[in-house]
C-alpha cells in the first residue's frame, strides 16, 4: 500500500484564506445595501427638486397648424411616444415612405411622438390641454407678442393681444334717435385720436349706450398699454378684495356677536335667570345695533360698487388663434371683453430675454409663497397653508414635549422599576407603531365629538345638584385619603418594606385612581356648566374639526417618540454625576432639575426633533380632525385672540394630496403638487436644522476637555 490512510495524512491547509473568511463579501453586501438606500433617497430628493423648481419656468409659446387646418397656440408641457392604430398608422407609414415626415416626429422604435400643449382658453376650447402628434404640425413658429395671461379665474388664456379698451355706459338715446356707431375721439392724456365704437346694450338697469374707446390697438401698443395700466387695475382689485374681506368680514363678525349675545340672554331667560324686562332691553339693543351695522354695510357696499364701476371701464382684448375669439369677461357673456383686473400676470413669453424670464419665474415663486390659493388650489399661492402647517407643528411641540418629558421623568426617575413600569414602557413603545389613522379616528371621536361638544354645550346628562355637591365632598375625602396613605407608605431607606406599608401604598394608588375618575365624572355630569358656546349651537365651535384637536391628536401620536428619547437620554446621564449631586446634599428633584435635565437636554431635543418631523409630515389623522381643502376662515386673524385654535385649517401634507389627486384640473395642478412637496420638504428640513443647531449648541457645553 503506497497510499496511506487519508485520515492519517496531515491535512493540507489551503494556500490562501478563503474569501468568506476574509469578510470582503460582507463589506460589498453592506456597502451595496447602503448605496441602494442612498440612491433611493437621493433619487426622490432630486426628482422633487427638479420637478418642483421647473414649475414656474415659462417656456416659449408655439403656434402651428394641425392636420384639420386649425391654428393652435400653446405652451409645450411634455412629450411621449404612443401606439398609433388603424388609419392613423397607415397614414404615418404612407407619409414616411413618401419622405414627408418632419425630422424627430417619430420615436426611434417607429412609434409617433405626441406633445402635450397647454392651450388654455377654457371658455372657448373646453379642454385647457391638448395632445398634438408631431407629424401633423405645420407652419411651426414662435410668434412675437404671443402672450400667456394668468387670470384670476378660468385658468390661463393664450393668444395675441389686440387692444386695450375703455368702456363707458352712457344714457341710451331716445327711441329712434340716431347715434354715431363708429368714429374717432381724442382722449385726454392719451394723445392722438382713438377709434370709438358705440352700441345700445341691455343692462339690468335698462338699455344703455355703450361707448368703447380703443386706447391702444395692435399687439405692441396693447401690451405696452397693458403694462402701464395693469398696476392700477391690480390696486382696484386689491381694494375691492380688502373691502369684501376685511370691512364686510368685520361687520359680519359684529352682527354674529350681537346675535350670539342676544341668544345667550334668551337662553338664560328660558332658564329663568333673566327677567322679562332685561330680555326686552336686550332685544331693543340688538335691533338698534343691527340697524347700525346694516347702515355701515350699505356704505361699504356703495364704496365697492363705485370702485367696481371704474374697474369695469378698463378692458383688454386678446384673441385666440383657432376661432379668433377674444377672452370674455365670463363664460356667460362671450361678447364682453375681459377686465384688466382679471389679469394676475401677462407673460409675452416669446419676447422675454433671460432676465425677463427670471423675473417671471421669481414673481411666480413670490406669489406661490406669499399669496392665497386660487382656482380650487390649482393656482396661486400657499401662504396660509405654510402658516397653518408651521403653526400646527409649533402647537404640537408645545403640547408634546413637556408632556412626554414629564412622563418619561416619572417612568425613569421616580417609578419603582418593576413589572408595571416595564408593561407601561412596552405599551408606550407599541403606541409608536399604531397606524396614524387610528389616532385620527380617536381624535375625532374623543376630542372633537366628546371634549369639543362638552366645551360647546356642556354635559348632556347631569346629576342633581345635591348629588353633585356630595360628589365634591367625596372627591376631597378620596384625595385626602390618598395623600395620607402615600405619606404613611413612604419607604424607610435601609429597612425592609413592611407589609403594612405595601398595603398602604396600594390603597393610596387606588384612591388616586378613584379620585381622578370621580373628578372626571364631576366635570362630565356637572349641573352648573352649560358650555361656553351654546348660543352658537347647533353649529359647533370646538365640537368639530379644528387646529387644537389636530395638535392634540398629533401630540398623542408623537408622544411615544418623545418619551422613548427622553428616557434614553435620562438613563444615559452617568451615575457618578447623580451620586455627586446627592453627595452634596441635593434632593432628588434638585438633582433632576440641575444635573439630569441639563445633561439630558440634547437627547430630549433629539426626541422633540423626531416628533416635530413626524408631526409635520403626518396627513392621515389630519384629514379626520382638522385639515380642509380650503379653509373659509383661517385659524389666525387680526382680531383677538389672533390664533383661533377651534377653526379648521390647511396643511401642506393634505394640500399635496388635494392638489395632486383631488384637483378638477389634474394637468394644471400636477407641477404645483411637485412644488408643494418641495416646499414641505424644505420646511421640515428648516425646522429640523434649527432644532439640530440648537442641540449642537447645547451639546457643546458638555464636551469634556482633557482626560
Amino acid at each position, binding site marked *: 500500500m503506497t497510499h496511506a490512510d487519508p485520515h492519517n495524512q496531515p491535512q493540507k491547509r489551503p494556500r490562501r484564506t478563503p474569501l468568506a473568511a476574509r469578510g470582503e463579501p460582507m463589506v460589498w453586501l453592506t456597502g451595496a445595501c447602503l448605496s441602494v438606500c442612498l440612491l433611493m433617497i437621493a433619487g426622490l430628493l432630486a426628482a422633487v427638486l427638479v420637478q418642483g423648481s421647473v414649475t414656474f419656468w415659462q417656456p416659449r409659446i408655439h403656434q402651428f397648424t394641425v392636420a384639420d387646418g386649425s391654428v393652435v397656440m400653446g405652451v409645450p408641457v411634455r412629450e411621449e411616444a404612443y401606439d398609433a392604430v388603424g388609419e392613423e398608422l397607415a397614414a404615418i407609414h404612407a407619409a414616411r415612405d413618401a419622405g414627408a415626415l418632419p425630422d424627430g416626429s417619430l420615436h426611434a422604435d417607429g412609434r409617433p411622438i405626441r406633445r402635450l400643449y397647454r392651450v388654455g382658453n377654457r371658455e372657448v376650447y373646453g379642454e385647457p390641454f391638448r395632445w398634438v402628434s408631431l407629424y401633423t404640425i405645420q407652419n411651426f413658429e414662435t410668434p412675437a407678442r404671443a402672450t400667456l395671461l394668468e387670470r384670476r379665474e378660468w385658468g390661463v388664456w393664450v393668444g395675441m393681444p389686440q387692444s386695450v379698451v375703455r368702456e363707458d355706459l352712457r344714457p341710451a338715446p331716445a327711441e329712434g334717435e340716431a347715434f354715431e356707431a363708429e368714429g374717432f375721439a381724442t382722449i385726454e392724456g392719451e394723445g392722438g385720436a382713438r377709434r370709438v365704437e358705440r352700441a345700445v346694450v341691455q343692462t339690468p338697469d335698462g338699455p344703455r349706450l355703450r361707448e368703447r374707446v380703443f386706447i391702444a390697438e395692435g399687439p405692441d401698443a396693447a401690451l405696452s398699454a397693458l403694462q402701464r395700466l395693469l398696476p392700477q387695475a391690480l390696486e382696484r382689485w386689491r381694494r375691492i378684495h380688502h373691502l369684501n374681506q376685511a370691512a364686510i368680514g368685520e361687520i359680519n363678525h359684529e352682527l354674529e356677536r350681537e346675535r350670539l349675545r342676544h341668544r345667550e340672554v334668551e337662553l338664560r331667560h328660558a332658564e329663568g335667570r333673566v327677567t322679562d324686562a332685561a330680555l326686552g332691553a336686550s332685544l331693543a339693543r340688538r335691533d338698534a345695533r343691527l340697524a347700525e351695522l346694516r347702515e355701515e354695510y350699505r356704505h361699504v357696499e356703495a364704496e365697492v360698487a363705485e370702485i367696481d364701476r371704474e374697474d369695469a371701464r378698463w378692458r383688454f382684448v386678446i384673441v385666440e388663434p383657432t376661432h379668433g375669439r377674444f377672452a370674455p369677461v365670463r363664460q356667460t357673456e362671450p361678447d364682453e371683453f375681459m377686465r384688466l383686473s382679471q389679469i394676475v400676470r401677462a407673460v409675452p413669453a416669446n419676447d422675454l430675454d433671460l432676465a425677463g424670464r427670471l423675473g417671471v419665474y421669481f414673481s411666480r415663486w413670490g406669489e406661490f409663497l406669499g399669496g392665497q390659493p386660487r382656482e380650487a388650489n390649482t393656482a396661486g399661492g400657499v401662504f396660509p397653508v405654510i402658516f397653518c402647517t408651521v403653526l400646527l407643528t409649533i402647537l404640537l411641540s408645545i403640547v408634546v414635549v413637556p408632556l412626554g418629558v414629564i412622563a418619561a421623568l416619572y417612568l425613569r426617575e421616580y417609578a419603582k422599576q418593576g413589572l408595571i413600569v416595564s408593561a407601561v414602557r412596552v405599551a408606550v413603545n407599541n403606541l409608536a407603531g399604531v397606524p396614524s389613522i387610528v389616532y385620527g379616528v380617536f381624535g375625532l371621536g374623543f376630542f372633537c365629538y366628546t371634549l369639543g361638544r362638552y366645551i360647546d354645550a356642556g354635559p348632556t346628562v347631569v346629576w342633581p345638584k345635591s348629588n353633585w355637591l356630595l360628589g365634591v365632598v367625596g372627591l376631597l375625602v378620596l384625595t385626602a385619603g390618598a395623600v395620607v396613605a402615600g405619606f404613611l407608605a413612604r419607604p424607610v431607606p435601609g*429597612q425592609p418594606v413592611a407589609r403594612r406599608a405595601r398595603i398602604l401604598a396600594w390603597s393610596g394608588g387606588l384612591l388616586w385612581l378613584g379620585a381622578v375618575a370621580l373628578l372626571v365624572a364631576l366635570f362630565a355630569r356637572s349641573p352648573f356648566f352649560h358650555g361656553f358656546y351654546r348660543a352658537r349651537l347647533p353649529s359647533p365651535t370646538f365640537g368639530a374639526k379644528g387646529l387644537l384637536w389636530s395638535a392634540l391628536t398629533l401630540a398623542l401620536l408623537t408622544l411615544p417618540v418623545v418619551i422613548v428619547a427622553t428616557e434614553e437620554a435620562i438613563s444615559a446621564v452617568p451615575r457618578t454625576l447623580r451620586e455627586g449631586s446627592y453627595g452634596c*446634599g441635593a434632593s432628588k428633584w434638585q438633582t433632576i432639575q440641575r444635573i439630569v435635565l441639563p445633561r439630558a437636554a440634547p437627547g430630549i431635543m433629539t426626541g422633540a426633533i423626531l416628533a416635530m418631523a413626524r408631526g409635520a409630515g403626518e396627513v392621515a389623522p389630519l384629514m379626520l380632525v382638522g385639515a380642509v381643502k380650503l379653509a373659509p376662515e383661517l385659524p389666525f386673524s387680526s382680531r383677538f385672540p389672533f390664533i383661533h385654535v377651534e377653526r379648521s385649517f390647511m396643511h401642506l401634507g393634505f394640500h399635496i394630496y388635494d392638489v395632486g389627486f383631488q384637483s378638477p384640473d389634474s394637468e394644471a395642478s400636477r407641477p404645483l403638487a411637485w412644488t408643494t412637496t418641495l416646499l414641505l420638504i424644505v420646511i421640515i428640513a428648516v425646522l429640523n436644522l434649527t432644532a439640530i443647531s440648537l442641540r449642537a449648541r447645547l451639546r457643546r457645553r458638555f464636551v469634556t476637555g482633557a482626560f
Partner: protein
Amino acid sequence: MAVTRSTIKPMTTHSAPTPSVPPQGASVETGLESLAATGVQFTVIDAIRNNRPFTPAVHETILEQDAIVEVKDFSLHYGPSKALHNISMPVPRGKVTALIGPSGCGKSTLLRSVNRLNDLIDSVRVTGEILLEKSPVYAPNVDVIELRKHTGMVFQKSNPFPMSIFENVVYPLRIDGEKRKSVLKDACERALRGSALWEEVKDRLNESGLSLSGGQQQRLCIARAIAAEPEVLLMDEPCSALDPIATLRIEELINEISKRFTVLIVTHNMQQAARVSDYTAFMYLGRLVEYGPTAEIFQNPRLPETEQYVTGRFG
C-alpha cells in the same frame, strides 16, 4: 507620623478602578491559597472563611481618641447577600483614617453608609448603627439631605457637573438656597484655595468644569465637597483614575485638608494609605480585621494576615 507620609514617594502609578460592589470571586480564593503556602497560622481568615465569630484587632490608642463617627455593630445587606458584617470602629476627629483591603471587602460600602448614599439602591437593608457627632445616622427621623451636607464626598472618578467651575464649587450652597453673590464668591474662593486650585482657575471661573484636566477636575470635586464646610470628608479612592503627578498633588492636598476636616479615605493603594493616613483599618470580606495607627499597621501589625496584606503577599 508626618515623616512617614512625606518620605514615601508614590510607587504604584495607577491602580485599576474597582467597582464598589464586585462579586466575591476567584481573586480572593487565589489569595487564600497563596497564604496557605506560607505555613503561618491565620486564625482570623480561617474564622472568616468558616463564618466563625472572631474579635478584630483594634488598637487601644484609637479608642482613646475623640470619635466624630462611630460605627457600632453595623451590618449591611444587598438583597440576600451580606456585604458588611457587624463592623464596629470609631473614626477619630481631625485625623485621616484610611480603609484598606482587597477588592470587594466592603470598604466603599462602609464609606457610603456614613452619608447614606447606599439608600439610592432599593434592596439595601442595614442593622446596627452609625453615629455622626453622637447622633444616629440611620434613625427614621434623620433628614438625609441635611446629613449629606455635613459629610462631603469625593468619588473614585472625578465627576464635575456640566456647568461652570464657579457653579460646580458653589453647588452645595446653591441647593441650600443661597443666593447672595458675595457669600457664594467667598465660599468659592475659600473652597478653591482649600483644594489648591485657586491659582490655576481664578481667571476662568466661568468656563466649563469639564474643560479642566483630570487632576484639576478631581481637585474641583474636592473643592465642591469642602465648599459647604462639612464635618467629615469621605473620599472613595480619589486617586485611582489619576496619573502619578496628579495623585501626588491630591495626596498633598489631603494632608492640607486634614488640618481642617476629618477625612475618611478608601484606598486600594497601600502606599497611599501609608503616606496620607493617621489611622488605617484593614478590612477583609466585609469584616474589620485590624484597625490601628498607620505606622503600627504597616510596620508592626498584630495579626499575620495584616502583615501579609500590607507587604503585598495577598489581596
